[in-house]
């Protein structure tokens, strides 16, 4: 009897998160997908219903409109310069004279990639220092890394405006030191976006790196040195290769959300900072083209599935 209860209980424990994911992840995703297949309309909500209920489903199967995905594809073809045939007709060519969605995607990936590398360069020494710190200090250092999460993300990014703007703290400080005569223009540039991403996502890089570095056996470094390997060389031959699972985890934890980042480029980036999160926002709220915006979101998801799967595999391998 009690065994039956515990069996049911253990099922329940598994079912709860799945139900949660079903209602708050899969269903919204399907709604977004549905919207992406509908047409733009001047109404509330601003799209024609593509299907309502299952009865409609088969009746309207033929009416599904892949126009938005076609547009996205044409945008990409236009970007790489092989557009033609399929794309000449259709409103893509008329409405948007030049490809811009692909530019935003590529630029997002590029910014996220560079920012990830920068975060790694900043985060690795921090994680290494923490892992080598005396045991008694480590908990406190770990707290310091997590501490920024206690303040609103939005407020922290806003704070950077105060630091980076031409008359901001950074420029005042450098001016005071006599290092500069004219203020550095950092605000509203890609540099500001990089700073914002590195700052915001640093804990996501540091924590997995710390976890792998901390459990590494220090006697391996001593063994390498004992066999004639100077410290720096021992780092590259032993420490770094053994910390790779942490590097991969940290990089993906930064890269994946950074690609779709909206707040940082919106607040710190300039008009020339093109990121897909911002494009998505302007399609949804400025152009009120919900179907196109939904299609953009779906494609973004598909693009990110690749690194997410890579992450999953790396995790599974690290555990094996």
């Amino acid at each position, binding site marked *: 009897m009690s065994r039956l209860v515990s069996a049911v209980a253990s099922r329940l424990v598994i079912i709860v998160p799945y139900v949660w994911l079903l209602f708050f992840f899969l269903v919204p995703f399907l709604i977004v997908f549905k919207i992406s297949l509908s047409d733009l309309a001047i109404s509330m909500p601003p799209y024609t219903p593509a299907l309502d209920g299952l009865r409609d489903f088969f009746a309207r199967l033929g009416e599904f409109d892949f126009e938005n995905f076609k547009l996205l594809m044409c945008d990409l073809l236009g970007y790489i310069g092989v557009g033609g045939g399929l794309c000449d007709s259709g409103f893509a060519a008329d409405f948007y004279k030049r490809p811009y969605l692909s530019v935003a995607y590529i630029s997002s990936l590029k910014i996220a990639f560079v920012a990830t590398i920068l975060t790694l360069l900043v985060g690795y020494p921090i994680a290494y220092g923490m892992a080598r710190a005396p045991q008694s200090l480590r908990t406190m250092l770990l707290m310091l890394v997590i501490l920024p999460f206690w303040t609103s993300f939005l407020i922290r990014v806003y704070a950077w405006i105060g630091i980076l703007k031409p008359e901001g703290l950074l420029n005042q400080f450098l001016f005071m030191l006599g290092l500069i005569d004219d203020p550095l223009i950092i605000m509203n540039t890609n540099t500001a976006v990089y700073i914002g991403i590195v700052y915001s996502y640093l804990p996501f890089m540091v924590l997995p790196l710390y976890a792998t570095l901390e459990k590494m056996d220090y*006697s391996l470094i*001593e063994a390498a*040195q*004992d*066999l004639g390997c100077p410290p720096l060389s021992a780092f590259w031959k032993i420490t770094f*290769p*053994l910390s790779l699972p942490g590097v991969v985890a940290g990089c993906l934890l930064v890269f994946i959300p950074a690609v779709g980042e909206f707040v940082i480029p919106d607040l710190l980036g300039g008009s020339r900072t093109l990121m897909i999160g911002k494009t998505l926002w302007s399609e949804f709220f400025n152009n009120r083209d919900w179907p196109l915006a939904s299609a953009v979101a779906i494609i973004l998801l598909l693009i990110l599935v690749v690194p997410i799967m890579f992450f999953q595999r790396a995790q599974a391998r690290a555990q094996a």
Partner: protein
Amino acid sequence: MKSLGSIRRSFAPWADPDAVPYIRVENITKKFGDFVAVNDLSLDIYEREFFALLGASGCGKTTLLRMLAGFEEPTSGRILLDGQDLSGIPPYRRPVNMMFQSYALFPHMTVEANIAFGLKQDRMPRDQIAARVGEMLKLVKLEQFAQRKPHQLSGGQRQRVALARSLAKRPKVLLLDEPLGALDKKLREETQFELTDLQQQLGLTFVVVTHDQEEAMTMADRIAILDKGEVMQVATPAEVYEAPASRFVAEFVGSINMFEGSLQKDKAGNTRIARSDGSMIYTGSADDVRAGDNVWYAIRPEKIGISSRQPENGIANALAGEVYDIAYLGDMTIYHVKLDSGQVVKAAMLNSARLFEDPLTWDDRAWITFAPDAGVVLTR
């Protein structure tokens, strides 16, 4: 051809006043904050010697080994290796290699790459590296495991890889930190002899740290017994066992009985110890001890005879008591005899002898006997 054993028997450079020590540890002190790990310690180790540092945990033996390897710098004092002062030389420039207690095999490299690691650091030509790695794999009988990763090996195999890796560079001195600590008893006993054979074959100087006295006795030419960062005695295994320098050494190595009392000479000139209960224990000569000094007579259980019959007169030392406990160990039996004075004495009897003796059992009246020179007189 002479067997390795006979070479061993004739090896005693420490007895030769002209021999120059290979490693000289001169007045080394190492402090960690307020804690003194090694205290003004001096040692001489000779070339081709198998030298063991024996002591309980926290006695400073590992710290001393780490100072030889260069992982710790002495607070004061210096270490000379083949005449060269090692002070300030980092571990990666010292002509010594270490086998770590945890083995410290690189988990992301194959067995082969692990062994080749040190050779690559020396920029040895590739074909020579391959040849040396092959030779090492053969030496530790792991040829067919060259491409395995450490986690695919058993504990014993890992130990061999660690050994091969630390030997690959042909170091002047090999330091071994509890080399057999992680192996099970049977494998440990086999490996002890393999290690000594290997050391003889290669003609290297081995310094091994261990807390296991049996391991030290089996393998080492000489043993240094350490306590609280100081050397208690440096001697061959037989000397350490038969002629311990102090009560600490006597009690640390093997099992021993102690009789405390003050030293006397009787009318016939024999040396004896007067005990507080009035009994006397005759000892061998103890010329360096003054009469009246408080001393300890230390005797090993296997040098004490035990019988249910009262011995005839003429036996120097015979003490009566009751059998208090019996530990049957298979090859021998240890009798714990509670003497009339209340002291419990351990007496060992080989079971080959026991068969012919009348069997003693719990609470039986028993007499223990021993010759005066079966034990040693200790003053500290």
